[in-house]
């Protein structure tokens, strides 16, 4: 099972965090700090796996963003890399050539897509069509965040 997923930039700025185990906020912040540091310190061309406490970190960089999953010892590392890739594909399909800013400004979409793909740390459906369809369906029901954020508010 995946314990948590973190997305952060090369500057170490956290862009998305998803926790599948219950932890106090303070603990989460500590973990994020620690892990961002570990991953950013790693050289290129090293393996994508790092032992961390009794979990294993599996990470991959896409452009300026690092995607990092913490999995259990018996989980499949390679497939976790593909979980990350499939998630990026889903984002890409939804946003059309996704970039870091899409994730920043449409963070709620990034979360919704992740929820359609992974629940409780386990992959729910690996079909691209099903996951994106769920989101697109819901979009029929609403305007985008940008739209309503851009409406005069105050």
């Amino acid at each position, binding site marked *: 099972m995946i314990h948590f997923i973190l997305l952060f930039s090369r500057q170490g700025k956290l862009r998305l965090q998803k926790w599948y185990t219950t932890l106090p906020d303070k603990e989460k912040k500590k973990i994020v700090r620690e892990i961002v540091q570990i991953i950013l310190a790693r050289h290129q061309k090293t393996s994508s796996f790092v032992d961390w*406490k009794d979990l294993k970190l599996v990470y991959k960089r*896409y452009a300026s963003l690092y995607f990092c999953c913490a999995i259990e010892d018996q989980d499949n590392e390679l*497939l976790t890399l*593909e979980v990350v890739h*499939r998630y990026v594909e889903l984002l*890409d399909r939804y946003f059309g050539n996704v970039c870091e800013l899409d994730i920043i*400004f449409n963070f709620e979409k990034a979360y919704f897509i992740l929820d359609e793909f992974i629940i409780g740390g386990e992959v729910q459906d690996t079909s691209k069509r099903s996951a994106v369809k769920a989101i697109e369906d*819901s979009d029929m029901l*609403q305007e985008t965040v940008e739209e309503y954020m851009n409406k005069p508010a105050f």
Partner: protein
Amino acid sequence: MLTTIKQKACYSAALYCLTFLNKTGATLTFCKGKSKEAEIKRINKELANIRSKFKGDKALDGYSKKKYVCKLLFIFLLGHDIDFGHMEAVNLLSSNRYTEKQIGYLFISVLVNSNSELIRLINNAIKNDLASRNPTFMGLALHCIANVGSREMAEAFAGEIPKILVAGDTMDSVKQSAALCLLRLYRTSPDLVPMGDWTSRVVHLLNDQHLGVVTAATSLITTLAQKNPEEFKTSVSLAVSRLSRIVTSASTDLQDYTYYFVPAPWLSVKLLRLLQCYPPPEDPAVRGRLTECLETILNKAQEPPKSKKVQHSNAKNAVLFEAISLIIHHDSEPNLLVRACNQLGQFLQHRETNLRYLALESMCTLASSEFSHEAVKTHIETVINALKTERDVSVRQRAVDLLYAMCDRSNAQQIVAEMLNYLETADYSIREEIVLKVAILAEKYAVDYTWYVDTILNLIRIAGDYVSEEVWYRVIQIVINRDDVQGYAAKTVFEALQAPACHENLVKVGGYILGEFGNLIAGDPRSSPLIQFNLLHSKFHLCSVPTRALLLSTYIKFVNLFPEIKTTIQDVLRSDSQLKNADVELQQRAVEYLRLSTIASTDILATVLEEMPPFPERESSILAKLKKKKGPGTVTDLEEIKKERSSDMNGSAEPASVNASAVSTPSPSADLLGLGAAPLTNSAPPPSSSGSLLVDVFSDSASAVAPLAPGSDDNFASPDLASSEVVSEEPADTVHDADELFHKFVCKNNGVLFENQLLQIGLKSEFRQNLGRMFIFYGNKTSTQFLNFTPTVICSDDLQPSLNLQTKPVDPTVDGGAQVQQVVNIECVSDFMEAPILNIQFRYGGTFQNLSVKLPITLNKFFQPTEMSSQDFFQRWKQLSNPKQEVQNIFKAKHPMDAEITKAKIIGFGSALLEEVDPNPANFVGAGIIHTKTTQIGCLLRLEPNLQAQMYRLTLRTSKEAVSQRLCELLSEQF
């Protein structure tokens, strides 16, 4: 994808900054030139604005509410604290507009922690959505339950979700969410998810048409099957046939579930994981089909890739590695194991670092299988090369692990040499572990102990800072226990000390060994007593206080060994720097040793300063240290506690006898001379009794029948600490119950071991040959956190050589209602009598709780049943006719004498039940072999019931008296 970010960023960043960010206050990253303070100011202004909107007189419409809640979320995700808005978010949940509901749920799942008081309101909204029959709303509600996953959620919905899951009219997408949602609840509160009719129907989801449903359901079934293997047994054949269909399908058959030409990799891996919960299928047809699948997967690895994309090879190899894990788990098909090993061997030289890493890791487990150990060993050169050339420390670490795992007597010298070599340049982060591993291997596979001594001294030379106390205590123990190596050791340390700069650990070892055995080399004029003394004393001033104290002890030992340099030593002791040393310990030693050397007669000196007696043989404390290191890296005070305890268990004797080497000889005259006080302050009792307070407590509770030892110490948790209602409960009853529970486990492997008002301990274990694994589940029954939660498994000194237990530490906090799991790996080295003790300490509320339970690891767990004919049985029975081999017990039946139950118990006990062997059909006859690492012991048993008298006569015959005795004791309690 994400690659064009730079261009896109340039276009849009400016735009966003102007429009979006100014409105949300999210100016943090993009508006350069602003200070951190300005940013915070901006955020605070925004927060104030939102707060005023929420508090304003005008009721906000759904749209505005959603907007502000979304902004709060945004600010929170930027890393700022949010302490309001929860209520507004909860209101959004009951909105009929999808978008508003969605944001509400997102806010809740990100920001509401499980103990929030709002949870009741939230649960209400969820309940409505679950009942709405609108799949989109149901999906949102289920995601939210899974995201929060609290006990309250489980209480509210654990009964409802299974119904949704197996209802005939539930949409596929909802089924998927429901399966994983239930899984999450089961993980947090297994006790709240009742097994029932739905379980059998869940298993049949493996046959579902929709692959997404199968994928989600497989995760759920795997977790459930881990804890209730019996109930989900039928999943094995279903999983095999599903897997077989996937593996043999063409790459396009599965349409959307084909990932880069690999058919359904996620589902395949999950199915292979599910199969790892079970032994190889018994049904030969299923087993054959599974073997075919595994062979197909191995074959595919040899085919040329269908795509050059890394995704293709990752997905394909993910399935391959999982298949190899299953092959290793089954550990029954030598052919597959060797093929797996060859495949991994190829990966060892692959250009992808990830594959090399995984191959090394996977081979580690392969090395422990008897079928493939030899095959793994053939790759030794590649692994050594990896150690030297890999650029990634994670990979090198795996290489070290593998070398350690593949080491045996035949290659120990080479592997140890290579590890020592690597140590010179190894990363700091893994040095200590390598040191421990080298020390263990050197000891374990030492053919001649001169090599061992050389190796350890090399260790100290190369990585002295990383050589922990355990390591050098151990070398001293071994040298003292082996006459044949003492002279060599003395010579070698003497030579090593000649180096101008040597590590303090070497001075310690040198000082100790020369103090004991310096006389063995004193005949050589190059190492005459005076030279030895001068050499040691030349290091004295550079050393820390404990080392100097040790050296002072060496000096007084020299006084005994070499009377000719007595005056030189007395001069040193008498010098101001010793007698007036600021350190009390040093000063006291100097004073006392000086006095001792002046007034004591030669005879007394010889008695007091006699050579150390041999240490009792015990498990290497280094091994314990390594096991500990394998746990989580956080060193909290919890670790400290463990450290203390484990040193009490394993190592207390060593530091004590080193520090007080001169005086802690068993001779009672030490006290007479008034030497007791100082050296003994930091020394434990002499090695022979090895008892610290802690050990005594445990050995008491072990020898008394009581597994739980209430009242024996004021710290011990008697149940009445928990709440006032249970005051009436007699501690004695608990003892009795717990003992009975212990006996219940003799014939079964799973169940509840212990339960009181606070804590429930459940067990699940599996054994094969001389190995076993036990999962201990600690459930916090209260709603309050347990702090400093420290379970420790303790083997008494008698038990330790016979039983190897490895545990991982658990998280020191256990949330209210939560359950934590601990795995104990068990190796039976030789037959044993006692049970290990599980000690649990934690803080609950303000009180410290401490309880001990016997852990039901009993000798019969290592039984392998043996079927044999009547003729064979009686022939063997006769062979074991030596009176010492037979143990008989006649006892009254404690339970109704039901033949079927008795049969089940004998089988549960582990022996085969042999039908039609005994001429009297009412009797029961069993046979089996007890597997230990050192030997195998054949056991025959015969149970004769006498219904009239309500009595049994039980006879055990084995090749070993102690085994007969123990098995008879254990089995007699069962009927």
